[in-house]
């Protein structure tokens, strides 16, 4: 008899545990969805800014995101606060450095504090999101019989991991003007499928100094650019 009652009690406790675990999973998923949304807002804003938008776009979009979230929870208080990174090299959460040393950086950074409180739950979650696209451009050339063959290697990283590009445009400078390499003769582009691309083309460049520029849009629509002086081999 006692064992029957005890086993019934254990069963009830176990059922309670399952329900509690599922609740925790739902809460984790809910917070994960907020972190994902924050990440997407930063990536989208950086895409906007690198394509000509003002740097205030990031703050405006994060404010909208915070506002949308606060309107979607009816069982308690739900707030998302953000703080754009102001530590150098970031200003208002943005760092864009499209250098002449062959490295280009487009980056956005913000930290967040998410608070949720209702009758059953208290959440105080702090996290940060950093979206960074880095472009590396290397170039070499050799002249043979009055013809200059230029080779360019482009590497793309998203958060320090190799990433694929949506669009790659290579330019070279001749007679003071930037020209698109695609229009040059014998232009060839090879995609290695791992974020590395090589381009080669023939160009009539009178100057002994050949400047090359890579302009890449990654799969998040973030634009990054880098210039480099081609090395003679």
């Amino acid at each position, binding site marked *: *008899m006692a064992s*029957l*009652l005890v086993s*019934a009690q254990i*069963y*009830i406790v176990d*059922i*309670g545990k*399952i*329900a509690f675990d*599922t*609740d925790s*999973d*739902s809460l984790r*998923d*809910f917070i*994960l*969805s*907020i972190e*994902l*949304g*924050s990440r*997407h*807002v930063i*990536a*989208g*804003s950086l*895409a*906007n800014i690198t*394509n000509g*938008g003002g740097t205030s776009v990031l703050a405006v*979009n994060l404010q*909208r*995101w915070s506002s*949308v*979230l606060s309107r*979607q929870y009816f069982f308690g208080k739900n707030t998302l606060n953000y703080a754009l990174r102001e530590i150098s090299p970031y200003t208002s959460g943005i760092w864009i450095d499209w250098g002449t040393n062959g490295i280009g950086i487009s980056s956005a950074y913000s930290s967040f504090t998410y608070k949720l409180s209702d009758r059953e739950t208290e959440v105080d979650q702090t996290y940060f999101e950093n979206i960074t696209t880095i472009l590396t451009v290397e170039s070499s050339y050799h002249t043979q019989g009055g013809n200059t063959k230029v080779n360019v290697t482009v590497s793309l990283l998203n958060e320090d991991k190799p990433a694929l590009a949506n669009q790659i445009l290579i330019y070279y400078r001749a007679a003071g003007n930037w020209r698109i390499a695609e229009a040059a003769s014998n232009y060839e582009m090879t995609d290695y499928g791992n974020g590395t691309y090589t381009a080669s083309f023939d160009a009539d460049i009178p100057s002994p100094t050949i400047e090359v520029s890579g302009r890449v849009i990654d799969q*998040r*629509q973030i634009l990054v650019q880098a210039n480099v002086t081609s090395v003679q081999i």
Partner: protein
Amino acid sequence: MFDQKGQIRIIEAFLSIAVVFSAILVSANLPSSPNLSRQQSLASIGTQALVELDVDGTLANLIVQQDWAAMKQALDVMLPLGVSFNLTVFNEEMQQVNSQFIQNSNVLGREAVSVQYVLASQTPSVEFLVLRLQLGWAN
């Protein structure tokens, strides 16, 4: 004296039987709790499916492109067999965005639950969307 003891034993036996039957009756009613658990797990399955689709921005991209057929296919793949669903997409102002039904059945079945999911698109013009995913066990 012996007869009285015997009577008490009989009463004891009846009481024992009554306790055993009441325990059986109580345990027979307990499956109402697992139903709650099933509903919560269904909500969790739905949220996880949306999170999976949201990780690389696919979820918002399908909505921005208004590719409702692809959205249904994606949910068909992500949700287990036997789960019926109906998805409604709202914009920031809570106006319905989807012009077609995104569902695999007209009937949600028993123990239906509703999951609300807020997301942002990863596009240069960031869009904020609210999804309402209704789920039910088909059988």
